[in-house]
């Protein structure tokens, strides 16, 4: 079942934010007013993410159920973290900003799968958006790694922040199902995959802490964690549907 987003106030804010982010990315790429560009990018992504969250709650398209929402959220968070966490170079910031703007704008015209609405409350959305925030941190970490290419990579700040975000996501998911169905853990395939993402990030964090003087281990842990988290976020729902696994979270 699919449906197209109806134009509304929240969608207008998303569109405006996408334009702001795109303008910021363009200024950063141009190089003349890069500082202003970074401000525009940071403010645009924050406003856009807030509007995306409102939109996802109102339209019942939480990031766990909607690929378009998840993708736009991950790239917007990635662009934001690329400015907020550590300077990663103008090219990376501009590229992430442009991608975020495109996916945010694309969300306004993309058909949304109407799944996951059975738990379409704020707590469940907090879970989804925290997961998206964690994936965005990891995207920013990958971008920094790709841009810097140094012999002493930095992964710990990204992995620790991502672990924090994903912990909030799991706790909020447990709270949502507890309030709805009276059980905070059901062994549901979607829950297991979300837990796998959390474990992957925690594992990456411990590896990066244990082997800080082994650049390949550090970078490998970041890529492993990011790969699993993003695969879970974008691929869990299609995988569960394709395999016909019984997931309560995806009953429409």
């Amino acid at each position, binding site marked *: 079942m699919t*449906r197209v987003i109806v134009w509304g106030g929240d969608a207008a804010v998303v569109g405006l934010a996408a334009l702001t982010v795109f303008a910021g990315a363009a200024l950063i790429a141009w190089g003349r007013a890069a500082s202003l560009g970074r401000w525009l990018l940071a403010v645009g992504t924050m406003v856009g993410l807030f509007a995306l969250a409102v939109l996802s709650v*109102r*339209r*019942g*398209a939480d990031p766990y159920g909607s690929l378009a929402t998840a993708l736009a959220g991950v790239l917007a968070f990635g662009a934001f973290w690329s400015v907020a966490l550590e300077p990663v170079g103008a090219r990376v910031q501009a590229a992430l900003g442009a991608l975020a703007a495109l996916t945010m704008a694309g969300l306004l015209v993309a058909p949304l799968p*109407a799944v996951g*609405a*059975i*738990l*379409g*409350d704020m707590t469940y959305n907090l879970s989804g958006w925290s997961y998206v925030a964690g994936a965005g941190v990891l995207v920013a970490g990958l971008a920094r790694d790709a841009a810097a290419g140094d012999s002493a990579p930095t992964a*710990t700040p990204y992995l*620790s*922040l991502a*672990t*924090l975000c994903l*912990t*909030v996501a799991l*706790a909020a998911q*447990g*709270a*949502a199902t*507890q*309030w*709805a*169905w*009276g059980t*905070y853990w*059901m*062994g549901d*395939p*979607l829950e*297991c*995959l979300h*837990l*796998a993402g959390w*474990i*992957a990030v*925690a*594992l990456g964090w*411990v*590896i990066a*802490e*244990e*082997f*800080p*003087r082994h650049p390949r281990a550090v970078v490998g842990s970041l890529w492993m964690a990011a790969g699993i988290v993003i695969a879970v976020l974008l691929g869990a729902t299609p995988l569960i549907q394709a*395999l016909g*696994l*019984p997931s*309560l979270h995806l*009953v*429409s």
Partner: protein
Amino acid sequence: MAPTERRTLTQSVANLSTEVWRLAASRRLTIAVLTFALALALAGALAPMTLPPEARAEHARLETALSGGWPDGPTAGSRLAGVGLAALGALCFVRLLQTWLVGWGAAAPRDAVSRVHEMPGTVDEVWRACGAALSVAGLTLERSADRDGCRMGLARRGGLAGRLRGALYLGILLVLAAGVVGRMWGWSGEPIELVLGETGVLGPDGAPSARLEQLAVTPLRGGVTEALSSTLAITADGAPAERVIVRTGRAAHAAGLSYYELAHGPAVRVAAHGDKGVALRLQSMSRDPAPRSVARFSFSGAQQEQLLAVPDANLIVRLVYYPSLAARGYAGPVVHVRAERGVDGLRLAEEFLTASGALAVGDVTLDIGFEYYVMMRAAREPHVPVAAAGAVLVLAGIVGLALWPERRAWVAVCGRGDDGAGDALVCQIAVEPRDASAGWLLAADAVLSERVCDARDRLGG
């Protein structure tokens, strides 16, 4: 056994326990545990789950799963998961002891990197100098043992920064304990289906009964599904009825129990009138056969067809619910109503209803209204606050780990072992290999070197 042999055996046991304790504190064990847990989580997600064939329908899946349709009982997988969780609990307990209690701290790792300073003075003076130097890096030096003229201790973050790490392990223990508390002291009643005006018992003997008094429907934005507010009158132990409102996705709490709406689905209200508007008696043929003027039927996963009799009019009414009936051009839910003569089953009238309506059968009019049934469950959940506290502590522990990464230094202050250096003592600071060139260690080292110089200058002067 000779004393020497006994000493050797005691020494071997002590060495073994030291190694085990050291292993429990190592990050490599954490890596192994997390790798195993990752494999288990992926296997748990992708392992095929056996559901009864009748539960294949989308809506029935929810009902069946929540009403106990998941495979339960001690399977090989659940035993393995149980053993894994018990091992995780034991590891967390050991880590908690190691983190919060100095005497329980692990020995320095075998590949620890040491820095050695020679410093004149007494053991107390050198120990204080070491502590002062390490405090520059935010570490607090605590004495763990005095043995053979050596004083040994562990320096690590003090205060809140040091305690928060333990909160992670305590939180995991609480989450695991919540499962045990839930099994031992929790209670969960059987899910029951209720239509308006119906009363059901929410569990075995002594469980409260619930009567569904009112249903309010709120369409969600986007029109994906409806949210229901069910007003229940709860009666327990002969006490006066207590009213609770249970909403879709939001439990209600009363009298120490929580009430959940697990699912809702279609139901119909049927009434029959004769030629002068006289209400006719109806009798369900599949549920409670008591005669009534208004009957309500739910269409749940296992029951998509209902039969009722109208004895006064010699009628049998068959109601069949279809989520959709593409063959007849109905994209949404539809109820097929068919009226038959009671004696020979002759079809008298039939209609496909997509909304509330009426069906005329000779002098009799059947009024059919579309309603909902709700599936309710009651539970006593003493474990939920424990699990919530555990989740908060896990979160706090991770915040602590992110803000204040672990720093540990093992300190030993001993005599030189030869008599060539007069009163000089050796202060050895050992750290994990990853910290060998850490800034905090270099800072502490510099401060200690300065103090050594000062002490030597004082002696020289």
